[in-house]
């Protein structure tokens, strides 16, 4: 059972060896970890992976893990963390990079690979901001 954002962020360490290296390289000290900063790192990693290896098992595993966290979330903080820290950062990163000609894949390409709960959170963000970034 995950009891905090910190534990939710740490749960990603076991999903992807590549992401584990990046997270631990940035900050090896588990106590000092900031889950919102980790969420940002996770978002960058997923955005990069979706551009470089869009059909990889690693990307599939990471997106499935996001879905698992949202499905098992019994507290609103869990959904908030996944939604704002990871999904919103992915949306912004991907759409900004694409607008700047720094990537080919659209935000909508990632949306298509998400699970049901993740898509719901993604759409909530589009509604909240009044901007659908999927096709930018």
């Amino acid at each position, binding site marked *: 059972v995950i009891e905090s954002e910190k534990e939710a962020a740490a749960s990603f360490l076991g999903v992807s060896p590549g992401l584990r290296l990046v997270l631990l390289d940035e900050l090896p000290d588990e106590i000092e970890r900031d889950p919102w*900063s980790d*969420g940002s790192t996770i978002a960058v990693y997923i955005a990069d992976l979706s551009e470089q290896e869009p059909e990889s098992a690693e990307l599939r595993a990471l997106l499935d893990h996001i879905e698992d966290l949202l499905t098992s979330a019994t507290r*609103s903080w869990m959904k908030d963390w996944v939604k704002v*820290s990871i999904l919103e950062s992915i949306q912004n990163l991907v759409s*900004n990079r694409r607008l700047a000609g720094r990537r080919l894949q659209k935000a909508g390409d990632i949306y298509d690979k998400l699970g049901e709960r993740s898509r719901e959170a993604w759409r909530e963000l589009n509604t909240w*901001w009044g901007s659908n970034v999927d096709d930018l």
Partner: protein
Amino acid sequence: MTLPFVAVMAALGMIGLAAVGGVLSAPSRPVHALGPSASAGPAVGISSRLSAYHYAESLQRADPLEQANLREQLLSEIGDGPGSAQLRNAIDQLYRPGAEIGNGGTAAALEEEVKLNQFIIRGRGVISFEHFEKSVSLDNNLSKLVRSRILDPANQRIAVEQLDELITATREATAALNQMADIGRDLGFSEVTTAATRVLASTGEDAVRLAETVLEDVAE
């Protein structure tokens, strides 16, 4: 784009009457609980208040094209060099293309949440600050980046400007959180709501203190 609270209340009074008559139908946005405070009280009349609020607020929104140009200009100004990838990543995450809220930045989202929650808590609804902790985290990361002095002067200037904008929003949100904790206590909300609000506020105070120290150091 901070609306004076009194002005919004006045707008609500006028627009609320029109909404009752079925003249207005502005979309409402999802509202989520702050921690386990979902038992704080019934959300009576919240949706109609938010609809009226959004209509009043939408009149103040900026031109999306102008926002996009500003953001692109900002991103194009980031040169290469140490720390530039970190700065570009931070700004890529900070801004949302085409957003209808302020300049599409996280600071604007936080300002929006403060305004929304000031209405919600008065209606005994469940408050939510989805962007508060993201802002605090970005405050801390930008503070560390600025303090490291690894950026070249032009990039350092951009980072300082971003940090300044973010801590202004964090400072205002922190004050609002403390105020909401007091309102929650006065209205007899659960202690959990008050406690959770205080915890968030203290996190914001720490981030603002760090950022202020860093900005003073680099200004010297």
